[in-house]
């Protein structure tokens, strides 16, 4: 039992970071029906940026979120304008899947040219410290990572529910045509929305670099998890993504201690297939009507 509870704690802490990455993915899908396959690569890019800031300028990885996030927001806006907006026609959604995949390959390639393919990790002095809470080991960086993710997710939800911009985002998610008729500037919402989606990847990336060793190819592992999370939660549902991410974290951690670590990553795919068998639209997803 002790092991299971320890695993659940670990799973929740990890799941929080994945929730942050997935929130950007599902937000972008909600607004413009675009699946950003490059989300994983953008996380890795941010991890490298934060790594570079840490090794060269000794900036704390958690502080570097404040630098990396705005920079990647600009990058996200550029990507949306150059690659995503140019796609038109009935296949635009499917084409965007492939364009962002190509973008992911491009990022992987550029990172491998600059940093080579050896694994890196951002190692601040507190990386290996942990607290002892009621007999359970709780790693300091994981708690920090979880808190940072929770704060950012909270900020995102405040942005979406309490501001004028958030209202236009939600309107576009629900019904783009009606929103446009009521004066929502869809292009602006899409561009800024994409930027925000990428910033979430950026913030999570800075944290990811502290938690795991990474190399340019790590984005495949990330994107397969992130896509499973957003599909499981229901495409476009922010709450669904958070629940699914926590579910994934806990499932993997528990399978790792109770069955075998080699099957941990696999277990979540089984959960995904079973859920899709019962609810093809995901846990909190709405049925796609047309598309």
């Amino acid at each position, binding site marked *: 039992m002790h092991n299971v509870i320890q695993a659940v704690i670990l799973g929740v802490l990890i799941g929080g970071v994945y929730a942050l990455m997935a929130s950007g993915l599902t937000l972008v*899908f909600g607004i413009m*029906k675009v*699946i950003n*396959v490059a989300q994983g690569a953008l996380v890795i890019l941010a991890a490298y940026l934060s790594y570079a800031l840490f090794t060269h300028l000794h900036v704390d990885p958690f502080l570097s979120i404040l630098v990396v996030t705005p920079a990647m927001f600009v990058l996200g806006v550029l990507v949306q304008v150059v*690659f995503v907006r*140019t*796609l038109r*026609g009935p*296949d635009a*959604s*499917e*084409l965007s*899947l*492939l*364009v962002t*995949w*190509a*973008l*992911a*390959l*491009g990022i*992987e*390639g*550029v990172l*491998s*040219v600059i940093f080579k*393919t050896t694994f890196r990790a951002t190692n601040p002095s507190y990386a290996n410290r942990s607290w002892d809470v009621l007999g359970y080991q709780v790693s300091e960086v994981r708690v920090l990572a979880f808190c940072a993710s929770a704060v950012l997710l909270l900020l995102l939800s405040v942005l979406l529910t309490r501001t004028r911009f958030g209202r236009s985002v939600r309107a576009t998610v629900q019904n783009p045509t009606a929103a446009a008729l009521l004066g929502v500037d869809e292009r602006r919402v899409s561009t800024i929305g994409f930027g925000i989606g990428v910033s979430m990847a950026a913030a999570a990336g800075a944290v990811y670099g502290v938690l795991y060793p990474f190399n340019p190819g790590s984005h*495949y*592992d990330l994107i*397969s998890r992130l*896509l*499973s999370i*957003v*599909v499981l939660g229901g*495409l476009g549902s922010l709450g669904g993504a958070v629940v699914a991410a926590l579910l994934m974290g806990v499932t993997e951690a528990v399978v790792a201690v109770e069955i075998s670590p*080699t*099957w941990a*990553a*696999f277990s979540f*795919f089984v959960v*995904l*297939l079973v859920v*899709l*068998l019962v609810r*093809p*639209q*995901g846990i909190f997803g709405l049925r*796609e009507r*047309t*598309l």
Partner: protein
Amino acid sequence: MSRATAASLVRGGAFAAAGIAFPFVVHAAWIVNIGVLTLMYATLATAWNLFSGYTGYISLGQVAFFGLGAYTLGISFEHFGIGSGYNPLFALPVVGAGVALASLPVAWIALRTRHMTFAIVTLTLLFVVQQLAFNLHSLTHGSSGLMLPTPTFDIASYDRPFYLAMLALLLAALGLCWIVLRSKLGLMLLAIREDEEKARGLGVRVTGAKLVAWWLSIAITAMAGGVWAYYLTFIYPESAVDPLVMIGAVLMTFLGGRGTLWGPAIGAFVLVPAQQYLLTRLGASELYLVGYSAVFMVVLLVLPRGILPSLRDAIERTRERRRTHGKRITRREAAA
């Protein structure tokens, strides 16, 4: 036989003849090697098109079954003894049919979801199979890779049997596509691509049609995987289930023209030699990746409909212009 049927048969026959003659005329091993790869990608792209191009459901996981085919053949060497020389190649149809049959339950679950979700679920399949190849150590030897017995072919023309096997697969794939396009199944698939709800309302058995197309597509893909494994004699999880192979096949289909008969093969014939050239010139796989993604972007953003449809449009337009031009002259003559 109608004229169109005769014309396509002649076209197919000429292509087959040229394809068979090629390795007997050109002996340089490195060229035949590029030929094998080109035919492999042409087969994969054509098979991908058979499902995704005709139904409009973009599957990003076909390469998972390429890997399954490769591993199935490799594992049968160890456990069943399927002979040497040409014999393993004759076992391929069984491998293909079996892998495709085994994929049906998963395909059924995935096809319950709609387009975008389907694409994502198939993409995760790719990672599932790769993970399985890592984890089922007793069968696949995990990350240390699976060694196949060295084929007992003459060194001087070592690549030729594989070339011919891939060519046979490509011809089979093209033949299947041709038959499907002219059959009732083809019409059903087209109806699904245009408007699935309406098709269902009209009594088209949409799930059945999609599954048949999926089965055919996967069977060919898995067989190509088998030939590839036997050719390389060494496979490991990252090489057998390589997202780059998947994206390559998709890219070639887009370049040539989705939903057309010859488009995917044409895309492969343009891209694979170029890709091999890039690979030898740039060497370092990092720069190669950057070049590859750049080509992909350009194709998607500039020529999203593909070579064949764009070409067809251009020809149509010039014909139209000539016709109206001709009319104008006759009108002027009439006035005179």
